[in-house]
Each structure stands twice: as C-alpha cells, then as structure tokens.
C-alpha cells in the first residue's frame, strides 16, 4: 500500500505537470525554493558551532520546522489528493495499512527531502564525535518523522472540517494571521540580524521551555551525545520516539473515525429579510449584493485583512525607519489602494456561474454601467473609511495628526484609480478561477496563471502611476497654509479619484457590452 500511494502521488504530479505549463512553473519554483531552504538551513546549522547556545538555536530551528509542517498542510489542503483519507474510504484497506501508505506518501516530495537535508546540517554543526554524529542522524530522522506524523494527525483531524463550508471559511481567514506573521518575520528578522540585535544568546530564555518539546528533545539529544552524555541523549530520543508513537496512534484512531464520519454541515441563518439599498435602482441592487459579499464571503474578508496588513507593514516600517515619515505614509496609502484594485481585478471570473444570472439581466450599456458603479460603491464604502482610518492612525502614532489628511488624499485618488483599473481588467483580462477539491482557496484556472499575474501587476503599477499627481501636489505645497492646503488637496484628490472611477465604469461597460457572452463563458468556467 505504501508503494502504491507513493506511486499515486508521483502519478498525480506527473499528470499535473503534463497538463499545464503553469503547473510546471509552479513545480520548478517549488523545487528551487525547497533546494534553497535545504541548502540555507544546512549551512546555518553547520556554522552554529557546538556550544549550548548552538543547541538553543538548533531547538528553535527544529521547532520552526515543526510549526511549518503543522500549519502549511492546513493552507495547502487539497493540493495533494493523497492527503485526504476520504478519497481512499471506498477501498477495503485496514486503517494501519492506510496510515503507513499515507505516511510514505507524505514523506515523498521535495519538501520532506529539503527538511531532511536541511536539518542534517547539525551533523556538521552541533554534533561532535562519532557518537554525536550517529545520534544526530537518528535525531534528525525522528524529527522529520515527528513533523510528518504531526502534520498528518492535524490534517486528518481537520479534514472533515475542511470539507464543510464553515470550516473552509475559517481556513481562508487563517491566511490573514499567517500573512501577518510572514510579513512581520521578513520585515523584522533581517533588520534585527543586520543590527546585531538577534544573536544565538537571544534564544536562551526561549529554550528553557522549548527543550522539553519534541524538537527540543531532538536538538538536546545531539548536544548531550556530543558532550559525552550518551545515556541522557538516548533517553531523550526514546522519549521523542514515544511521543511520535502516541501521535501516530492518535492519528490512526482519528483516521478510522474520519472514514466513517459525515462532513459537518452548516445550518446558520442570516439576519434581515431584504436586500439593503435594493430600492435605489439597479445600481443599489448590485451594490447590495457586493456589500453583502464583503461581509459574508471569506475571500473578501481575507483580501481586506491582507490589505490592512500591507498598510500596517509599509506604514509602520516607514514610521520606524524613514527620517521623513511623510514618504512612508503616502507609500502605505498608495500600496493599500493598489491592493484594493488588484484584489478586485477579476470580479466576473470570481463571481463564477452566478454571473450568468446577471448576464441574462444586464445586457445594455446603461445596465452594465449600473453594475460596475454598484460594485465600486460597495467596495468604496469599505475601502475609503478603512484606508483613511489607517492614514490618520499612522499619522497620530507619528505625532503628526494633520498629515492624516495627506494620506487621505492619496487614499482617495488611489482607490478611484484602483477601482477603475479593476473594472477594466475585469472585462479586458477576465480569467476563470477554480477551487481544487478540499482546498478553500480559489486560484487562476489551469493555463490562466499568467493572466492573473498580468492583471495583478499592472493594477499595482497603474495605481502607482495614477497617484503620482497627488503625491507631487502634496510635496510641492508643503509651504502653503494648512487651512487652505489640506481641504484643497483632499477635495481635489476625491474629485480626481471619482473621475478615474467614473472613467473606469464607462470603459468597462463599453467593453462588457460587446463581449458579454465571452465574459459569461469565463464566469461559467470558474469552479467555485
């Protein structure tokens, strides 16, 4: 069974690679990343040395790998159909046999190999002497096994949840804290390292409790064996093996349970009995639909959450590092509005087959103008208060509250420009999206990854260009009295943003009127 599932996993990969060039690029990128991680971690661990401080850092690195293995399968669930035990439920397999097969399948691929190679860096770093190296080999194998077993246990336990609508919604929202942690990590760790604020001794306190976790047991077993405490080292490894065994047994139990348990269904009801704003004509009706989606659709919440993280990261970093805070504030406003545009640059593809209902009703240019302006009204109702609140918040933190108006000016122009570009790309470069089985995330359908990248990058770039006049106005009016300058800047930027949004609606409606059947087919091709 183990061999069969490994072959199945390899076959799925090969088929995916043959099916599209996008999959080939993604696979090559994944292999390059895995190789970089393997090489980088191996190098890092090998130069750490053999002291107790090195053991502490090794513990932290082992723990980071365990956490990554724990979290990533939740996010990429469904990318690998061998991961979902439900796909094997029909076959006459004993749970233990299936568990062994799934474990072997999980251990196949560039990332398990990268984990193994990377962690083997301890043989050239922390480990000393033949016994130290021998224990290091054992410890790394157990650590990799621990990572895989833990990931399998958690994934299997949550598989039922991820097949329900509410569970998928939660998984989608999980991306926001993950993205925030990732952004925080790449923004702060290199900076702290370059300033010498992050050294091996920084982990001394952390290790006091991490050393008793499974990754800590593996790392300290190597240290013990290298310092002549072989008995303690073996005891630590035995304890680690025991923990892996317990997790494995729990996993097998969970696996057996999940195969005969139906998915959780959701029976929640919505409040209210009518579409808001529906009395305001077609524009209000469409705005109502998009407004509801901003609250109920997890992708919409995810997009807003990521926009907030981007604003904060760019703004806070600027507040911390830029001598001229204003540059950072304006950059954060421009980035925020650019992402508002880029996240909504494929509205028809993201609407999916439901767009057919709209397409059979909205076919005149006037109706399509109402459609796009209704869409923009709903997004603007979220984006304008959100982005301006952050502009004023950042300005207040920097103790320059009046600068919030300057950020607001860029927000208003950027949101108008972003929505205009989003409307235009929605009709000019629409592409179908799909959710693969078990995955909560929609992505560009096979063969359309380039389209998605094109629309996203050009929207980001386009917003960067359209806010330049406002930024120039801000910079060139610094000496003007604030009482005149600020209202003029905000009103001028608002008018400019509205004009851009209006132009986007006109352009998009003209294009959509001519290619509504083609847009309908793209929407129908989306698998949401």
């Amino acid at each position, binding site marked *: 069974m183990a061999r069969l599932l490994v072959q199945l996993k390899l076959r799925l990969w090969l088929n995916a690679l043959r099916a599209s060039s996008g999959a080939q690029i993604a696979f090559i990128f994944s292999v390059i990343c895995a190789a970089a991680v393997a090489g980088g971690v191996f190098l890092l661990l090998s130069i750490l040395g053999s002291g107790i401080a090195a053991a502490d850092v090794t513990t932290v690195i082992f723990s980071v790998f365990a956490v990554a293995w724990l979290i990533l399968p939740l996010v990429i669930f469904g990318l690998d159909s061998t991961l979902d035990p439900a796909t094997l439920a029909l076959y006459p397999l004993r749970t233990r046999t299936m568990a062994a097969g799934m474990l072997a399948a999980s251990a196949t691929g560039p990332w398990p190999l990268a984990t193994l190679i990377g962690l083997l860096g301890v043989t050239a770093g922390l480990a000393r002497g033949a016994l130290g190296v021998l224990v290091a080999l054992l410890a790394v194998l157990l650590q990799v096994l621990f990572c895989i077993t833990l990931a399998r246990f958690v994934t299997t336990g949550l598989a039922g949840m991820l097949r329900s609508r509410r569970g998928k919604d939660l998984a989608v929202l999980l991306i926001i804290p993950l993205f925030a942690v990732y952004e925080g990590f790449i923004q702060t760790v290199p900076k702290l390292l370059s300033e010498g604020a992050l050294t091996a001794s920084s982990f001394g306190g952390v290790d006091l409790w991490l050393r008793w976790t499974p990754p800590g047991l593996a790392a300290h077993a190597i240290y013990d064996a290298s310092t002549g405490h072989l008995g303690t080292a073996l005891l630590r490894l035995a304890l680690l093996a025991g923990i892996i065994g317990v997790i494995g047994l729990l996993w097998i139990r969970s696996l057996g349970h999940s195969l005969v348990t139906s998915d959780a269904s959701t029976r*929640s009801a919505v409040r209210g009995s009518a579409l808001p704003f529906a009395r305001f004509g*077609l524009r209000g009706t469409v705005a109502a639909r998009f407004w509801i989606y901003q609250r109920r659709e997890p992708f919409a919440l995810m997009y807003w959450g990521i926009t907030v993280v981007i604003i904060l990261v760019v703004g806070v970093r600027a507040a911390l590092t830029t001598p001229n805070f204003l540059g950072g504030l304006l950059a954060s406003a421009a980035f925020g509005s650019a992402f508002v545009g880029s996240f909504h640059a494929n509205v028809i593809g993201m609407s999916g087959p439901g767009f057919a209902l709209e397409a059979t009703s909205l076919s005149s240019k006037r109706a399509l103008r109402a459609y796009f302006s209704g869409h923009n009204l709903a997004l603007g109702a979220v984006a304008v208060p959100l982005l301006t609140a952050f502009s004023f918040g950042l300005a207040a933190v920097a103790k320059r509250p009046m600068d919030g108006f300057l950020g607001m000016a860029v927000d208003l122009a950027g949101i108008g420009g972003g929505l205009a570009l989003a409307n235009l790309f929605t009709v000019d470069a629409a592409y179908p999206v799909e959710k693969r089985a078990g995955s909560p995330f929609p992505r560009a359908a096979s063969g359309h990854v380039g389209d998605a990248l094109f629309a996203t990058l050009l929207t980001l770039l386009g917003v960067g260009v359209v806010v330049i006049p406002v930024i120039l106005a801000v910079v060139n009016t610094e000496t003007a009295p604030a009482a005149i300058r600020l209202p003029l800047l905000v009103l001028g930027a608002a008018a400019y943003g509205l004009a851009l949004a209006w132009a986007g609606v006109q352009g998009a409606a003209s294009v959509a009127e001519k290619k509504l*059947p083609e847009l309908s087919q793209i929407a129908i091709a989306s698998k949401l």
Partner: protein
Amino acid sequence: MSGTAIAVTELRKSFGPKEAVAGIDLEIAAGSLAGLVGPNGAGKTTSLSMMTGLLRPDGGRVLLNGMDMWADPPAAKAIIGVVPAEARLFERLSGEELLEYAGRLRGLPAGEARSRAAQLLDVLDLTGDAKRLVADYSTGMRKKAMLGCALIHNPAVLFLDEPLEGVDPVSADTIRRLLTRFAASGSTVLFSSHVMELVEQVCDHVTIIDKGRIVATGTTEQVRNGKTLQQAFIDLVGSRANDAEVLSWLGSSSS
C-alpha cells in the same frame, strides 16, 4: 397556442476543430413544453447557451417571440428566464436575498420583487430555508432556487438545462408541476434532460440531438413513433451492445 416562441435557424458553433453544434434548425410553438434530449456531449448545453445569449454562435439566428437574440440581446433577454446546468449561483446570499436580487436585476420594484420572492419560495417549498445561505443548500434546493430566479419576472420563454439532474423525487415533482402549470398558461418551456420518462410524460414537443445535429424533432407522439421515447432515442442515437463479449469475467459465475 399561437405563433412561434422559439425559432432557431442554422445555429452552429465549433470549439477548435470540434463542431459542437452543426447548424441546427428548431421551431417551438408558443405555449409548448418542449424537451431537448441527447447523449452526453451531443450539443444540448451549447445550443441552449447560444439560444439564451450566453454563448456567441459562429452562425445562425435565434428568434424568441420574434426578437433576435443576437441582433438585440437586451430585448430578447428581457423576455426569457434561464436555469443553467451549473447549480451554483451567489452562494453567500440567502435564498430569499437571491430571489429578490434576481427580481431587482429584472427591473421589478423592490416591494414587488420581495413579494414575488416570498411566493415563489413558498411554492418551491423553500420558505423554511429562505434565510439560509445558498452555499448550505442541497442540489435540489439550489435547482429550485434557480428556477425561482428564472421565473420571478414572469418570462415568456423559459430555458432549463438539466433541471432535474441530482434532484430528489419530491423536489422533481415540485419542479415538474410548476413547469406544467407555467406552460399551460401560454408561456413556453424548453428544457434539456436525460430523464426520458419525464420528457415523455410532460413534453408535448421533443427534439433529439446527437453529435451537434438534430436527428428527430416534432410532437412527442411523432418522435416516439409508437415506441417508448427511450427506445426511440436508442434507435436514433445507437447503443453499444458488445459489452457482454468483452467483459466475460464479470459476474458471479466467473472469478
């Protein structure tokens, strides 16, 4: 019945080298309940998509109550209702909100859209689930909600693509009764289906399509020609009968 509700002339569509619809002609009288049947990949969905303005044809003409779908799409679309095969609409709206949205898109005043939505939900036996998200609906409930969306503006011509696919018998009966009542009022229904018994039972007009071509069309009696519709369909489309020779190992007497 009076006049022609659906008049299709030389309608064709190719996807690359594959000719999906090879120049079909079809005429359905107003007030008909017509069925479009054919094997998988015969061109049913492609034909219906072109008739409803959702797929641009390579050639041909579609007249709906005299209005040319491809010369004046807004006018033609205003008089039709469509239930597509894909049972996914706006998943994050409740059933009630979805029907109201459909009504407002069709230009009904807000109060009227709300009132009709409530009545349709009642008839479709969805009142108890009106406030639940469509995302949590079963296939049958989705199909009924889609039918409600297609009917809310009282269209003259209703198109349905596989309306009973994956629908339980109770929901199927509700849909069937509603369609029969709708056609009896003088409106026209054209639906595609694989369920021959249903087509035979409720349709007064049947068209059989195979490999993008119409192989039979007329009243149900004419197409059946004294046989069951199932048998007439198999006789026209053909079937594979060599399975038993190939699968000699299959069955309890073999191992």
